[in-house]
């Protein structure tokens, strides 16, 4: 049995699976249920100044893909619409009930020192373990100069992080918005301001779908729509890249990261952790299937770690970071060719037509007049496309055919900038 317990910038939790700041963590009822189900921690849904915000009806839009009901989810819900005092009271009560679980409180108040100075002591009084600064929410609040409006200006990120560290002893996590050009700039600013960790990604600006009858974006509120924040499985690759960029950046190398973005299984979590995340946060998957999904996340991660011989999380956290590199350092001597297992092939022809129409004309469609799909090695560049379009597992595999060696673009004769080896 591996040890899944986590100590993330002083925040302890029995496992690295936290619920992200979002509707599932809006009140004591839900959070108690989450802890009963086994979640290691929660980031309480963002608190703001009273009077509370007001939310609209019709808040979520979903992207369906080939039977997957929620491949991506978009929301236009704002921060908590309950009074501050009620939230603080419930946070205190839940933390007292569940002392071993991580209780992080998400905050979003106007961009002035007084507001932060006002709210932080009240949060500390609840017994919460840490605060997370919501600099990411891309809809509604950003129109009022908060959320991603702050996260998009590195100077503000640094400034607010500094205020928070000045006015509170609690560990401070800065939640980053992906709606920027280079996420490293925001991360560097957060750590310059004294933040203990960053969490990412918040949601991505999005219009889920357009209702072609109403001629309006969805989710539609009485005939109109607005951009929302996109999350769920579809955003995971974007989140993984942003995490990796921060993890391997010289200025923020190995700094604590809490990973967020389409995580729904132990495998998703393990991937984020391999890229340097000490904990992971989940929302969409729980909203899709309920809190019970954490059961397999815990069990599956445990079994996988046992099978790999990892005794604790730190044994593999960040292990993939050194293997994320720049394109220019990739080995050009490496060569692979597609191989089609004729026993597994069902002869659907998808590999042929993909290669024929859109790639390298490297797959035949017949042999002696009979339907037959075979790779023409001389034409195959090893792009993997056929392997991805093939509907049968392990029918098309890629075989390494080079004779070893290493050469990269930096010394390649075609590179005008090349430096002689």
């Amino acid at each position: 049995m591996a040890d899944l317990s986590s100590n993330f910038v002083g925040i302890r939790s029995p496992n690295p699976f936290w619920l992200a700041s979002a509707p599932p963590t809006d009140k004591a009822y839900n959070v108690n249920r989450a802890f009963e189900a086994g979640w290691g921690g929660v980031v309480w849904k963002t608190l703001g100044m009273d009077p509370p915000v007001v939310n609209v009806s019709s808040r979520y839009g979903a992207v369906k893909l080939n039977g997957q009901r929620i491949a991506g989810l978009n929301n236009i819900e704002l921060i908590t619409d309950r009074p501050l005092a009620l939230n603080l009271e419930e946070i205190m009560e839940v933390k007292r009930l569940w002392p071993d679980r991580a209780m992080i409180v998400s905050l979003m108040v106007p961009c002035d020192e007084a507001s932060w100075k006002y709210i932080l002591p009240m949060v500390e009084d609840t017994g919460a373990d840490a605060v997370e600064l919501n600099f990411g929410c891309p809809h509604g609040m950003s129109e009022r100069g908060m959320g991603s409006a702050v996260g998009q200006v590195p100077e503000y990120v640094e400034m607010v992080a500094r205020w928070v560290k000045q006015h509170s002893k609690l560990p401070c996590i800065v939640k980053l918005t992906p709606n920027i050009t280079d996420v490293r700039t925001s991360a560097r600013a957060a750590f310059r301001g004294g933040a203990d960790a960053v969490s990412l990604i918040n949601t991505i600006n999005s219009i889920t779908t357009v209702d072609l009858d109403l001629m309006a974006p969805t989710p539609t509120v009485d005939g109109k729509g607005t951009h929302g924040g996109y999350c769920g499985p579809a955003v995971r690759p974007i989140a993984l890249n942003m995490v990796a960029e921060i993890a391997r950046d010289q200025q923020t190398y190995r700094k604590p990261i809490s990973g967020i973005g389409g995580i729904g299984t132990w495998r998703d979590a393990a991937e984020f952790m391999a890229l340097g995340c000490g904990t992971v946060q989940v929302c969409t998957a729980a909203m899709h299937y309920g809190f019970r999904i954490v059961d397999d996340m815990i069990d599956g991660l445990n079994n996988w770690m046992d099978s790999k011989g990892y005794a604790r999380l730190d044994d593999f956290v960040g292990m993939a970071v050194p293997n994320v590199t720049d394109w220019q350092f990739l080995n050009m001597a490496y060569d692979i060719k597609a191989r089609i297992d004729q026993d597994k092939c069902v002869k659907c022809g998808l590999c042929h037509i993909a290669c024929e129409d859109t790639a390298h004309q490297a797959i035949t469609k017949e042999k002696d007049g009979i339907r037959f799909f075979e790779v023409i090695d001389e034409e195959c560049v090893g792009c993997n496309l056929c392997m991805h379009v093939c509907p049968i597992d392990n029918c098309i595999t890629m075989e390494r055919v080079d004779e070893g060696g290493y050469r990269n673009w930096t010394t390649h004769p075609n590179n005008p900038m090349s430096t002689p080896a």
Partner: protein
Amino acid sequence: MTRLTHGDIQAGRLSAVELAGNFADVAPPLDRQQALLAAQRCFYCYDAPCTVACPTGIDIPSFIKRISTDNLKGAATDILSANILGGSCARVCPTEILCEGSCVRNKDDEKPVQIGALQRYATDWIYRDGVQLFTRAASTGQRVAVVGAGPAGLSCAHALARQGVDVVIFEAQAKSGGLNEYGIAAYKVPEFAQAEVSWLLSIGGISVEHGRELGRNLALADLQAQFDAVFLGLGLGSVNALGVPGEHLEGVRNAVDFIAELRQSSDLSRLPVGRRVVVIGGGNTAIDAAIQSRRLGAEEVTLVYRRGAQSMGATVLEQAFARDEGVRLLHWARPVEIQGVDGAVSAIEFAYTVPGPDGRPVDTGERVTLPADSLLKAIGQTFDPISGPALKGGRIAVDTQFRTSIPKVWAGGDCVGGKTDLTVQSVEDGKRAAASIHLLLSRN
């Protein structure tokens, strides 16, 4: 109901509720969600084997793709432009030996994509809403006579009408549709054949004269004289006889007549059926007759075939369906005598057979006698020869363009025979013949 020792053929063996259930749609339609799920299983194969296997060449991956994007008009157009009777074919085709049998998903015990059910989903709304997908070209003034309003004739007529040709269909029966109306099991096409025919005819330019039969009140020579071309889609008019003593007895009848009567019955509780039914034959007609007898309330139904299961014309799926319905299948037995009491059938004596050296059945010398109140014969149909066109193998001889030996006379469907005696093949024959006729007419 009192059981009689012989000649026990009575109506009302089941309640009206039971009968309604037994003759309702055997394969209910998919709803949108089921259809989308089924469509998502399609790999969208390139140069797809299912399309190659379809006698009418429906672009199956294309129509399934369109279903998945809610482009039902496009899906229906894909189907019906290749096969104008795509609605009935979706119901009656033995897909397990055609498109679905060729589906690449069949590998490793997987189930094929539900192509037939999806085809029905893509087309059902067309008939329901009366949507016209095709436009008729301006009338060319040319006239073509089509004899027979079965699948071949209807297919030919529609294709010509689209080209602006004026078509007159001559049909012996009171209704159009051919086997779809008179010869297919009721639960496969409930209430559908006439809806499909009227949709097909709604393109315009086609008139149908019922009660007109070649050789009786219709002469080929007159048609040749009055029309620019003639298409013969006559079907098969005769049923093979068993050629054993007792065939004249009461209770012995052709399975096709039993099915036709059932199809035309407006009240199944008044349709007589035997208590103990024996069906002789191995094709789909035999299966349809056997199952429908059971569903009318027959106590025992035995289907007897002189060879083994693999030689039967009915597909493996149809045979399994019959067994599930409680039909007993008896292989390797041939009838030798129909026994009677008081002029009515009472039992049938069979000789057991085994495969001979050439594979044909030979008697073992053993006999078995099955008590029966009703005997339904389904050992194949034959073409009623007509005077005029040359025959080949007992059916009308045609070339690759479905031209007969007589100038300006084409023929297709079961009366020419070909690879298969399937509805879908008849539709293709009619479609090809129409193309050939149009080619000739457009040269005039």
